[in-house]
């Protein structure tokens, strides 16, 4: 076990865990932030996507020891009131079915728009291709990303 001081959603959190523990399980088991989801554990489905210094990363493959003082943002910290343009667009289009993958989808989409506020269809597809939605909400996700882009650019 080792002590780590993590910057999660703008707060310093001290935890004492095995150094190999992926951030996914630090968040879910130790910090009790369960919005970040476990889907595959091998960075193939995107359900565990968080932002590390603003970049979308798969938290299931991110050992706690590798993070240092880099800023971690989870779905719970994406916006204070749940009103990030991507979250709003998701509600406007009523994207979710079961909803399990959607936090990961939103984190990937919001990181994309941060870097590329006006993505083409192909750029959206490329960015979102690592996020599986078993319910098949892809057409709505794409629509919502475009609406969010429009509202960011407005």
């Amino acid at each position: 076990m080792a002590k780590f001081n993590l910057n999660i959603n703008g707060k310093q959190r001290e935890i004492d865990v095995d150094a190999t523990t992926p951030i996914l399980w630090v968040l879910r088991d130790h910090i009790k932030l369960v919005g970040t989801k476990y889907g595959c554990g091998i960075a193939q489905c995107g359900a565990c996507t968080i932002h590390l210094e603003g970049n979308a990363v798969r938290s299931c493959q991110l050992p706690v020891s590798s993070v240092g003082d880099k800023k971690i943002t989870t779905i719970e910290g994406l916006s204070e009131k749940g009103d990030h343009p991507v979250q709003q667009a998701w509600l406007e289009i009523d994207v979710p079915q079961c909803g399990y993958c959607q936090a990961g989808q939103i984190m990937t989409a919001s990181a994309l728009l941060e870097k590329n506020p006006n993505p083409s269809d192909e750029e959206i597809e490329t960015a979102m291709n690592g996020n599986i939605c078993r319910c098949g909400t892809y057409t709505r996700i794409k629509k919502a990303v475009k609406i969010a882009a429009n509202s960011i650019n407005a």
Partner: protein
Amino acid sequence: MTLVKTAIGRRSFIKSSALAGGGLMLGFNWLASCKMTPEQVNNLPKEWFEINGYLKIADNGQVTIMSPNPEGGQNVKTAMPMIVAEELDIDWKDVLVEQAPLNTDLYSRQFIGGSQAIRTSWEGLRMAGASARHMLKSAAAETWQLPIEEITTESGTVYHKSSEKSASFGEVASAAAQISVPEEVELKAISDFKIIGTSKKNVDGHKIVTGKPLFGIDTHSEGMLTAMIVHPPAFGMKFKSMDDAPVKSMPGIHDVFTIKVLEDEYERQHFDTCTFLEIVAIVGNSTWEVMNAKKAISVEWEPFETYNEERQPYRGPKQTLTIPAGLESSDDHKTKMIAMASKKAKVVRKDGNPEAAFRKAAKVVERTYTAPFLAHNCMEPMNFFADVKSDSAQLSGPLQKAELTEQAVAKRLGIPVEQIDVELTRLGGGYGRRSYAHWALEAAVISQKMKAPVKLVYTREDDMTGGIYRPAYQVIYKAALDSNNNLTALHINAGGIPESPLYANRFPAGAVDNYLAESWTIDTNITIGSFRAPRSNFMASAEQSFLDEVAEVIGKDPIDFRLGLLKKAQENPVGEKNDYDAERYAGVLKLVKEKSNWDKNDATRNQGVAAYFCHNSYAAQVVDMTWENDKPNIKKVTCAIDCGIVVNPDAAANLCEGGIVDGIGNALYGELTFKEGVPEKSNFDSYRMIRMSESPKEIDVHFVKNDIDPTGLGEPTFPPVFAALANAMYKLTGKRYYQQPFLSKDKA
């Protein structure tokens, strides 16, 4: 208005204290979710009055409606309360929705399965709202000393118009709660609906997009331990021995032991499929610690002998299943299925004289279709929470058949059902997989042994290699044509491992004079379970691809050919047991033809069509696509569906879109193969799921407008799209697609 006796669902309306004081209610967390102004605090409800098991009304007029069925993405948690609110005559903005716990006294059929939630609850939900409205009116009539016939309601207010009296539902709720449940109630005329038929947002939308705990896997309780299992690596294997000492001393590990999931003498019901009867349980403090122990443990497995399993299926008499010994491979499955084609099969339906018709045929078209085992791959891996005490148990998790799970757990633990509480969490996908809740039994047994609350979590690999798959199927379609290219006979020979996909009384039965439908099965030790539109998901694909090919041989437009058959089934049906309405069937084909611009189908566009009837609903689809860079590019899917009254149109469209994307994904890529009992895929690096770039660019859903009571929607759009896709792909590649998945690497 329609007058309906409340007797059928009366049990549900008996005022019960179970809901009011039960510790399982979610409470009013919404109140604490944001900081309130003093004004908001003043407006908070001070008292709630329970009118019946489905709803309670606060003194301030706010209404809480319980959603009885579990939510797994079908959006019933919004749709079911909408139906209650409609008949109650309240504004949707004044409604709060709560997920009901399992309560067999108050609710019936708290299931996800068969796309039946809305269909089977429609009347009960309407009565719940209507009887409450009647009680509110009675309360006002008594207070005002006026006849109830003169009392009306509108948007949460009771009125006596001629004396200009009015009171909010909140004001009369207290008195209404004292009034006895009416013997019969008036339901609204469909034309008076204000909520049903309008699109309402998902009631959990905000919680989903902000990452609030909603799912079983998010469960946490004080002192909770985490458990994982190790199951045999191959079907046909069982536990032999393990070296658990090194693992027991690993950090954070509490215990390692084997558990028997079901006792030998347990009488299995339909959904009690359990792949591995004895498994290893590892229990510890945190997921990562348990995962590490799971990786480190050394377990020996051995082959099992053939055995029989008795089981009471959903319908029909008790069955005895043979679970054969052996380590099965997909290559052997293929050989066995091919061999079945020349063996005598069970005749399930016969009309006319098919043998003679085939002898006299001018032309015979014969095609064989196959489909592999499929894993459900719900995004939320299987998991369950159990807190088992000496004489009671608290259970919580994503369940499709909670009532049956509770019964099984009660028997397994030796604790009466009355002492078991079940909370229904949101399901991170179900598609049939969570009807088979052996993992709930596992969690309960582990908690009982540990004497502590336990959350059991499967890894993705445990889940994907753990069985309960969509079976592997094969069907041979054979059509006889006379010299005028009339379809004179149809022969269907269908089977599977270990279940036959045949629906003998479905279209085109009833439309062909000479018809023979046969069935066979092959035993296996690979476990299977319901998978979105069971059996239909294969039969639609094969049948609708075959009809396309027959239409081509005859030289007819594929839609016109189908409409011709349906016309015959409507006007002059063959046989009496045809289980579809040919007119509604034709209706969706005509609608999809119009909406997809089928008649303008030119060389630059490549369209494929299919239609199917299952789960009481009719769906037709046209896939419009191109082929780019050696890959299919699906431009558009047009879907017409007749599912009766649509409660929440936008959410209903979302569900149809999902069925279409899911169908295309499984048709193109879905496949689980086996080598010596071992599943050859165990995670999403090898099991290919459809992704955004591969899904249709546009999906256009059209509902047939009618006043028929609502029918299924979660499943019916899934089966036909396999064939609509295959038929469109044929236009582009000149190849017919007989084997699923259509884009498997193993196939030429």
